[in-house]
């Protein structure tokens, strides 16, 4: 448009040709662009970046030095991990971990029967992969396997059944990773459905159901987990005849599962409240009944928005399982505690090494859960750009 068209050009405008899309300027893309956008965008951001780089520069070399460079890799007792003339700085004492690893994994489970624990781990891994891998075939069969076949067969496998030739193993002998995984898995698997029912109960229009749910949730949230475990583990046997009193591990499992359900209920309730009223009305108007509406319309959407919080609760639960030690159950942390005071390996670095193992174990599991949740969220967000 030239000036010769006169004053008209300033008010009337017609686009004659569409502008084709152009690539963005280079400073927006590439490594430099990423750096600018994410690490150096504002003065505050720059300060944070510097602070974190300094922190990492201080911590990471120390960690690497302790875990690898100064670490002791071979030896048969404490002498290997003690300071000596050749070995002034002593890092992690790996022979200790190596020797006690079976104890960390199986506790005092009889050595001849430990294949049963391995089989349980394998079956659990298959079930988890089947359910969590979104492209896996036949999720319906996977669910039956995970929620019906797996619990029953694991129970038989781990506790034993003389009739089919499996020697009974008292749960007192269980320990280490086995206990941690069993407690966490039962807590995780039981708390979600129970939490959903409690959340629905709390939002129910039936006064009895509602008040029972509220009382349960508020009561459980009002007492610490340690108290629940202590009640289940120590007080309960005082009131009940010995034959009626269930196994100590079972009592702890029930305590943890019921405790986690109350928290899960509140997480799910938050999700239910995020669903607009129109979704309920839409579902009712096409004739769906209450449970159909909940199962097909409301819960899929509510659980989706609560995935971050559900996983957060799971991670908390996973770490809370260490509290079972107060009722004398030997979870992973407790087995490490016991092993680190063993005179055979008593050195200044034994405890640190043991705790490092626990840290790595919990980090792998919790970070794994967190990463899976992130991937799941991203995938679901893509499914309904809404």
């Amino acid at each position, binding site marked *: 448009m030239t000036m010769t068209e006169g004053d008209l050009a300033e008010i009337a405008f017609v686009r004659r040709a569409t502008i084709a899309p152009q690539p963005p300027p280079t400073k927006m893309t590439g490594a430099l662009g990423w750096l600018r956008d994410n690490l150096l965008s504002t003065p505050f951001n720059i300060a944070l970046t510097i602070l974190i780089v300094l922190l990492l520069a201080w911590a990471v070399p120390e960690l690497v030095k302790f875990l690898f460079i100064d670490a002791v890799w071979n030896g048969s007792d404490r002498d290997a991990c003690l300071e000596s003339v050749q070995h002034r700085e002593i890092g992690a004492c790996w022979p200790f971990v190596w020797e006690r690893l079976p104890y960390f994994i199986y506790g005092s489970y009889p050595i001849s029967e430990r294949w049963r624990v391995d089989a349980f781990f394998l079956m659990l891994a298959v079930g988890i992969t089947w359910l969590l891998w979104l492209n896996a075939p036949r999720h319906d069969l996977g669910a039956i396997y995970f929620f019906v076949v797996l619990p029953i067969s694991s129970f038989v496998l781990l506790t034993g059944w003389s009739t089919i030739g499996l020697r009974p193993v008292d749960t007192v002998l269980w320990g280490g990773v086995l206990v941690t995984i069993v407690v966490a898995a039962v807590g995780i698997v039981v708390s979600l459905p129970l939490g959903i029912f409690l959340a629905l109960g709390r939002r129910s229009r039936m006064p009895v159901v509602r008040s029972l749910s509220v009382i349960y949730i508020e009561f459980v949230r009002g007492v610490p987990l340690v108290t629940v475990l202590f009640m289940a583990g120590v007080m309960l046997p005082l009131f009940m005849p010995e034959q009626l009193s269930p196994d100590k591990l079972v009592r702890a499992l029930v305590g943890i599962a019921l405790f986690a359900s109350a928290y899960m209920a509140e997480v799910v309730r938050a999700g239910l409240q995020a669903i607009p009223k129109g979704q309920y009305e839409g579902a009712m*108007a*096409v004739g*769906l009944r209450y449970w159909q509406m909940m199962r097909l319309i409301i819960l899929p959407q509510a659980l989706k928005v609560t995935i971050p919080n559900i996983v957060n609760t799971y991670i908390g639960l996973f770490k809370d399982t260490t509290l079972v030690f107060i009722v004398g159950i030997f979870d992973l942390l407790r087995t490490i505690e016991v092993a680190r005071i063993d005179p055979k390996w008593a050195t200044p670095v034994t405890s640190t090494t043991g705790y490092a193992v626990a840290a790595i174990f919990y980090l792998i599991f919790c970070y794994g859960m967190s990463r899976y949740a992130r991937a799941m969220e991203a995938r679901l967000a893509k499914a309904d*750009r809404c």
Partner: protein
Amino acid sequence: MNAAGNHGSLLKPAKLNTSIAVEIAGMNKWYGDFHVLRDINLKVMGGERIVICGPSGSGKSTMIRCINCLEEHQAGRIFVDGVELTADLKKIDEVRREVGMVFQHFNLFPHLTVLDNCTLAPIWVRKLPKKHAEEVALHYLKRVKIPEQANKYPGQLSGGQQQRVAIARALCMNPKIMLFDEPTSALDPEMVKEVLDTMVELAKDGMTMLVVTHEMGFARQVANRIVFMDEGQVVEANTPQGFFTHPQHERTKLFLSQILR
């Protein structure tokens, strides 16, 4: 209700069991102390198209939501195709199966594809096999002219398309009566026509319709009767001809002078 076994019959308009589609007699409703609906009496014959209009807060939406029991009424009686709406959940289910509803904000299920939105109720409520439900759904998606969107999610469609999906979803249950609660109020101006056209088509097929709307052009073209409400009461009801040319009540005259310029 012979529709269950035979999906062919779901493609044709369903027949009412009685000649009166909806009968509301002396209905009253309160929200707490607030008397929202006062002595509503309305008889809708099979195949009739009723347009309900009035200022906002006049209770028109609440009234049609009472017809499929999304709202409860506290006094009076409501019969839908001969079935009385009471606290009995079976009756409510029965009525909801036969009455389709279209909402102002569509209320599609965002986590399901368009096709799944349409087949959900036929599969779970009518117990139709999945394959038949999909045939029925595609038939109605063709009728609202968006079969090509069947595998998209509602969030990927325009407002007008979403509302047409909502109409198709309701039709898939082969309802005897259709309720529309301000179906075009949340739409961009450019999309109102495509939804109204769909509704006109539906009216031509003889569907019994109760429509809450401010679209007076639609009312003039389609309605057998126009019901004007204010402050929870039916103020005036008449044929479109009579309603627009000789409004009787002062409130009606004022309303019409405000919206018809």
